[in-house]
């Protein structure tokens, strides 16, 4: 382990011997696109008539978000993260992240976070929601959040992909991606993702989709460079 770290340090010194080193040291980037092949399941319009205060927020019916696609077979809402090669320094990001309930939908549909990172759950609707994440590894809880109440502050201490439900509005589905790394992104705007600030090293990148499972790719960063990594999921029609 120690030799590996030493090698890493040496290679860093080797690729950037100038004074610019500190700013360039962590300049490696992995970026790419997530796409699918085949035909994904048809996403259906959601009937929100039982909750008029939400229904009226949408000019056209909201479509289920189990599979969100874009032009050229792009696949959104895929969590892409460094699953090995970057030892977690245990530093929990301090930036605030928010999971919003608006129009009886979860925004974002997938919220990625670091283990032990605090996040806020906000109810922007005129109706009560109950936030009921269904973890298997972390601890399960279930809280009511009527309109106008304070944000719920929570965190999870173990890595896990957690399904989130509102029992009152059964169409509401989302995910928490709790990760033991600070190198992650969620593909959006046409399947794009970007993992910046990677020190030189060998990494395994994992891509996770709620319906299509996981894929991995190995990549080596040697310095100030951007490596292209693309993931293709096989879509299933059901």
């Amino acid at each position, binding site marked *: 382990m120690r030799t590996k770290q030493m090698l890493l340090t040496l290679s860093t010194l080797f690729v950037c011997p100038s004074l610019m080193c500190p700013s360039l040291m962590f300049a490696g980037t992995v970026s790419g696109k997530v796409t699918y092949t085949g035909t994904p399941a048809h996403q259906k319009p959601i009937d929100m008539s039982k909750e008029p205060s939400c229904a009226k927020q949408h000019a056209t019916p909201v479509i289920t978000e189990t599979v969100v696609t874009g032009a050229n077979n792009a696949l959104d809402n895929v969590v892409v993260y460094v699953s090995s090669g970057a030892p977690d320094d245990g530093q929990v990001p301090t930036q605030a992240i928010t999971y919003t309930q608006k129009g009886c939908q979860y925004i974002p549909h997938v919220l990625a976070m670091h283990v032990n990172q605090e996040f806020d759950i906000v109810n922007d609707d005129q109706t*009560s929601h109950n936030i009921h994440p*269904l973890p298997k590894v972390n601890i*399960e*809880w*279930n*809280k009511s959040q*009527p309109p106008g*109440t304070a944000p719920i502050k929570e965190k999870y201490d173990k890595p896990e992909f957690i399904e989130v439900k509102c029992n*009152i509005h*059964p169409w509401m589905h989302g995910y928490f991606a709790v990760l033991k790394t600070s190198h992650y992104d969620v593909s959006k705007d046409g399947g794009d993702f970007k993992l910046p600030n990677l020190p030189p090293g060998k990494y395994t990148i994992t891509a996770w989709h709620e319906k299509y499972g996981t894929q991995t790719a190995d990549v080596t960063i040697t310095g100030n460079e951007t490596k292209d990594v693309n993931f293709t999921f096989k879509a299933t029609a059901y």
Partner: protein
Amino acid sequence: MRFISAILFTAILGFVFGTGFTARAFAQEAPDVGPKPPLVVKPMESHIGNITGHSADAKSDYRRYCAGCHGDYGDANGENAVWLDPKPRDFTIATFKCRSTLTGTLPTDEDLFNTIGRGLTNSNMPIWNTFTKQQRADLVAYIKIFSPRWEHEKAGEPIKIPAEPPVTVESISHGKALFTKLECWKCHGPHGEGDGPSASTLTDSKDNPIRPYNFAAGGSDSRFKCGNSNQDIYKIFMTGVDGTPMPSFADVIQPNDAWDLVHFLRTLQVNRHGKENEVLAAAHGVIPPYVEKSPAPAAAPADNKSPGGGH
């Protein structure tokens, strides 16, 4: 004849196990191969008053009385489990319905002790009042061998319940306003009959269908799952019923408001003889609209989905 029934039996067995294995294949998990490892009974304790329970002492009681449903390994896979609805508790995840502690925390030993003695109404969990207190305490300790949470975590702190104020028409009226505002009726129905707009869609945390509590059903002795005193009702909605759709309201209801809600919920038990229904009867069965006491000039929210009850 015997031959044919043997074939039939094998076919049925094959079907039952076959579907089990298919489900596994979809989940892409390696099937468990070979016999299960022997169960290690960790030395766990429980403390209820001056009684100390020991897991080792409950081994035969658990196997005789509990394992049939909860399973030898506490994983809710006892041989009767497939026939039960709701399903037996899975002790390996240590999520418990009846707690005096906040949602997501472990219950106190006393909570578990009371659940065993009380049984769970509307389920197959009987009232184990034939056990001695020592036997129950030992079983509470035994339940803890199935989840590592009991080794790493302390039980939650029981919520503080202020003394119950007197039942008045005003408290019932305020409780009704809360029942409307907090949208309890979305599941429990406007008259507490368990028929709210979301009722038919509810599932528990293992995806089994589950029904919201019907307050109106039953006679004068209708029981709640987690006890039947007013304090128990207070605890149920404040701490939530973990593992089910019933959330915790501890963060959103003030303690005294919670008592008003308890008083209103009692009036939904229309056949029950109690002080709440007496107070309501004295008011000719009419719950007056709730008037906010504090100076709040803003228009009161339109009460167009007013739940009834006690009529």
